[in-house]
């Protein structure tokens, strides 16, 4: 994966941190202090689309869906997350109970082209 930097327009990982104190959520979310809502953006070179090796990747289902819905999309490819991890939260619910949970696949660590 490529971290976005400078003026590259390639598919890359854009880091974005939401500080719970800044948005007034620090009273009900005990931990952590914020959420790394990184996301993927940028262009995927055309020659990446339809690479034979892709058939073996786990993006095949996504690519097939795109093909099924939009035939000419097959000549393009998307910048998508390739690595994700859970967001662990300790928070108060509406009954002032204390809840700990891990929300799966909430933090993007790397991006790539399908």
């Amino acid at each position: 994966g490529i971290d976005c930097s400078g003026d590259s327009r390639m598919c890359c990982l854009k880091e974005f941190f939401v500080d719970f104190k800044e948005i007034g959520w620090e009273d009900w979310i005990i931990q952590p202090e914020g959420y790394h809502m990184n996301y993927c953006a940028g262009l995927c070179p055309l020659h990446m689309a339809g690479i034979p090796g892709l058939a073996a990747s786990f993006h095949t289902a996504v690519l097939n869906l795109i093909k099924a819905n939009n035939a000419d999309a097959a000549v393009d490819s998307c910048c998508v997350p390739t690595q994700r991890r859970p967001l662990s939260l300790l928070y108060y619910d509406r009954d002032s109970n204390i809840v700990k949970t891990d929300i799966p696949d909430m933090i993007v660590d790397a991006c790539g082209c399908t």
Partner: protein
Amino acid sequence: APKGVWCPACGLSALAPTAQRDVLIALAKQSILSKLHLPDRPNITQPTSRGALLTALHRMRAQRVDTAPPPGMPHDGGIPRLRPGMGVQEYEILSFAESGSSTSRSVRLHFHFTRELAGSTEILQATLYLFWAVPGPGTHPVIVRLLQPDPAGLNTTVASETRLEAQRDVWATLDVAQAIQSLLGQGSQRLTVELEVAEDWGSPLLAVHSDSHRPFVAVQARARTPHRVQRR
């Protein structure tokens, strides 16, 4: 994303930086609330004191150590664990007691569980923690009743009754998983526990009002996975 734009993040770069930031923060709020099955951010009216929370966490850790199998044995507290990365959300919930009606020989405690738990989760384990403040030497029997509302919701019926022996100041535990699962199954969100002592201790749980000995229920739950058809 604006119409005609290929992917949700593509239109972002066309916005001004402040507008981008506002869109992303709104998206972050929406995704966290939806994953926690919350319609809106909770308004905290009774934050738990730090003392009560630390005591509860300490008690739970001690309880797990006490019930851990011998070294070398896998330790999962008897809960059927999923392999990590299975993508199923699990919860650990601490619900602290609210005092209900009491007499010189009995006291009622209420534990609330939110609607989000009902219907969408299965209870893996639930333990009631009670601290006895015994008045003196000897054995002091305590009757613990789990009450649940009757179908009309006007009265309560006894779901289970357990007799415990208190000999000294100690934390006692009681398995309440079945009672909570049945409560949630009936759409109720409140577990009521009644404690009654044989002789006149005064209120059997003077400690109810002290932060470091506040009774609590520790629940481990797992989101129900929708029925999936595996295509081979």
